[in-house]
């Protein structure tokens, strides 16, 4: 794989790191469940549903983009995706604080997966990956590299990174650090996030 061919994959992994670090994407919920149920096991058990919900949300976006890329002009896909991202960032900026809350601390496995899916979707987690998908669509199709498989591989790379980071942070915080650091250390991921969405969207539009 060339350097050029590697960068989308590095992007999927890098964004997995970014999403995993965000307290609103799951590690904090896992820690809270561990504290409530007084067990490290509860922290670990929370990780799979968090990852599954996140992966499903991201994959739906990835599959849509790749499917679109297979049938329509790539420039149009880039432009449309860019416009959606910018609009999403605007929505997030204005109404991001306003979510219907579906699950709480008594959540089970399915509820946690649903929560993670909704959080990732509402935050546009999958949309953030779109620029990295675009070059994959334009590459020469090879045997066994159809859009479905590509999207699954991309989501797998993203999710494995995200899951690893989520799990590590959750365990370290639950076992050693405690939650007091949140008071200063919980930086405004939403601000970064909104900025990332808008920048990604603009980049797509400009390069369309």
């Amino acid at each position: 794989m060339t350097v050029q061919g590697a960068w989308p994959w590095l992007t999927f992994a890098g964004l997995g790191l970014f999403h995993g670090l965000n307290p609103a994407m799951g590690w904090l919920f896992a820690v809270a469940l561990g504290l409530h149920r007084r067990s490290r096991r509860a922290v670990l058990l929370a990780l799979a549903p968090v990852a599954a919900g996140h992966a499903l949300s991201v994959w739906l976006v990835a599959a849509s983009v790749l499917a679109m890329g297979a049938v329509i002009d790539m420039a149009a896909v880039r432009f449309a995706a860019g416009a959606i991202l910018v609009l999403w960032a605007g929505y997030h900026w204005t109404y991001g604080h306003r979510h219907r809350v579906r699950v709480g601390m008594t959540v089970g496995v399915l509820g946690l997966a649903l929560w993670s899916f909704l959080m990732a979707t509402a935050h546009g987690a999958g949309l953030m990956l779109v620029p990295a998908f675009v070059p994959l669509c334009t590459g020469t199709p090879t045997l066994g590299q159809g859009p479905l498989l590509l999207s699954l591989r991309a989501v797998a790379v993203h999710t494995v990174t995200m899951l690893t980071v989520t799990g590590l942070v959750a365990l370290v915080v639950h076992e050693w650090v405690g939650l007091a650091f949140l008071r200063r250390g919980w930086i405004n991921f939403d601000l970064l996030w909104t900025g990332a969405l808008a920048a990604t969207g603009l980049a797509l539009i400009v390069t369309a």
Partner: protein
Amino acid sequence: MATWTPDPTFYPSPRMAMQAPVETLAYVASFDPARRVPDAITVVDVAPGSATYSQVVGTVAMPNVGDELHHFGWNACSACLCPNAPHPHSERRYLVVPGLRSSRIHILDVKADPRRPEIVRVLEPHEVAERSNYTRAHTIHCGPEGIYVAALANAQGEAPGGVFLMDHETFDIRGQWEIDRGPQRLAYDVWWHLGHDTMVTSEWGLPASFENGLVPEILLGGQYGHKLHFWDLHTRKHKQEIDFGAENQLVFELRPAHDPTKAYGFVNSVISLKDLSASIWTWYREGGSWAVRKVIEIPAEPADPALLPDMLKGFGAVPPLVTDIDLSMDDRFLYVSCWGTGDLRQYDVSDPFAPKLTGTVRIGGIASRATHPKAQNGKLNGGPQMVEISRDGKRVYFTNSLYGAIDEQFYPEGIDGWMVKLDAKPEGGIAFDPDFFIEWPKTHRPHQIRLEGGDCSSDSYCYP
């Protein structure tokens, strides 16, 4: 406006909130019972060592008269750190101040000058009624989905009362909270167990039964509220009703344990029709549902009928009238206001089913008219009523008015407002701060107190 790091007054757990800095200001709802002068939010200096300690240092008049400011709360609090619905970069910056009588809601910004809050928005009664379908807004709590407001009546001033939601940044009304209210008709207080996804609501009565004072026939007929309601906090459906029996009238203030893993809380019933006693009940999780048990009963005190208002002469006794309670942040001490007898009691509730009385002070009271070391006239009226505890549990503040039209029924000459402070010992025991007695401006009476940065009835927590 979003900030880069969380509001420094947000704490993940009640344990951490106890380490918060000592409050320097208290905000007090202040109303004119004659409805001639606008009500106000009064700012009191509570910083020990300050040159203006225990003095009123600011007053923000409302734009209208006759609101009857009563309870109020913050736009955002520690619940913003919850993992399932995080809003960590909101600011605790606005006081949400409803008029219980007018149904108007005022938004006060305390950021620029905490001693001179600025009214930044007023939601007029018709707007509140149209958007929420409720009136007589009472309790304000910041929570997972924004600002929760308990309202005593629907848009027509009738049953059902209920809960509606406000946006915690724009203050637009988002509408009725309940999706399925089941048998619930009456409303009063609202709070929750974030760790158990459960909302609890209590009951007073409809406006016609209190806006001109308590109606003896309704009271003696056992027709004021006497139930608790338990709801699923997230599906917004009614789950369970617990009836205390019609003799236990006026089920009021909800004080769930601050530790979100604990599934119990305390609520007061103001008066028993059987013997005029007042009671505190513990609600708790048992099996798959909620249950209650009476854990404190405070008896009426015999008194010379000559000292009693008409309403009580025939009984020859002063009912304790427990009208407010408050739970310390460590869930250890429950403070109980006996507005009738004048007692402010402290109970150790480490075992929520076996409270132990650990301290009492007496001030005011229908028959006793007990005084305060710093009071001028030596014969105080009104009694301990809205009580608020500092986050570290060392200071307790309270005021003496209940509700304009009801004050006169029990204190016929009217109430001269005051606010006092107690010092609480870590192992139990309370005493008046002899330097803290605020004689309230004669035009107004004081009601609920909110402490700068949060107090023991303002915040809820998701982490133990």
